[in-house]
């Protein structure tokens, strides 16, 4: 089986179980406070980690290229209140534009 199919099946099963945790498995019984504090941090930590790899990640290297300018432009747009989709378009246009020019 290809890596892609393994990911599709295993992630699918894990996600179905997480979403069913309350309605099917545990009911409204809350998780312990310590567990909750760790779980709450997973989404922000993983998403920011992905921002970093997607921006400067290379083949076993930190690569600084046109992506940084595009991500900076998109990030500033988000910070100024631009919605996510237009901010992504700004990042793509800046990055693709620089790749053509440089």
């Amino acid at each position, binding site marked *: 089986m290809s890596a892609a199919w393994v*990911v599709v099946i295993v992630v699918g099963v894990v996600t179905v179980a997480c979403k069913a945790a309350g309605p*099917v498995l545990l009911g409204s019984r809350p998780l312990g406070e310590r567990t909750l504090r760790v779980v709450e941090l997973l989404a922000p930590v993983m998403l920011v980690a992905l921002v*970093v790899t997607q921006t400067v990640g290379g083949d076993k290297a930190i690569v600084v290229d046109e992506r940084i300018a595009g991500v900076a432009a998109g990030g500033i747009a988000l910070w100024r209140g631009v919605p996510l989709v237009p901010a992504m378009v700004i990042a793509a246009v800046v990055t693709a534009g620089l790749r053509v020019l440089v």
Partner: protein
Amino acid sequence: MRAAAPLALGPLLFGLSFGVLAVEAGMSTVAATIFSATTFAGSAQFAAGSVLEDGGSAAAAVLAAAFLNARYAPMSIAVASLFQGSRARRLVESQLIVDESWALAGRGGRFERHVLVGAGLLLYVLWVSSTAVGTLVGDRLGDPADYGLDAAFAVLFLGLALPYLRSRRALEAAGLGAVLVLCLLPVAPPGLPIVAASAACLLGLRR
């Protein structure tokens, strides 16, 4: 349904772009569409796709996605009382819990079942169908880097992260995770830095 309508454009475009990424990650149209139909959680799917596209292992992609989706356990517990009927029915309906439907359903201060299910269904149909179309676009697109899509995906992750970064604790943990990634990128195999960054969540154990 009406409450979810303004949110429709986003998922449609995200589904399209996930389809494009899935092709780059080595998924067929069938695999990518089944992924969207079973996992139905954009951020985790983009994470898994991003790791695979970088040449990471299946294990790294699975862990990154599973860590991201762990949040659905406490989120589903918070809305558990809305789901009634047989176990099978609760199992199926609970799959409609996704960030947007969950947030919309709780807007009024207490969770409303018809909003969660209605918005969830609409988002589900949009997400699965646009993923399938996106893979067909991706097949014809050539190198997504030519269109700057790699940077656009970074901004997508940033935009998804922002709502979670309101507390000081979350900012500290995310900052530590980012440092871990930067330290590991030059030495570790692809995908591993993201998985290792999850250790930063242990900051949550502090008082």
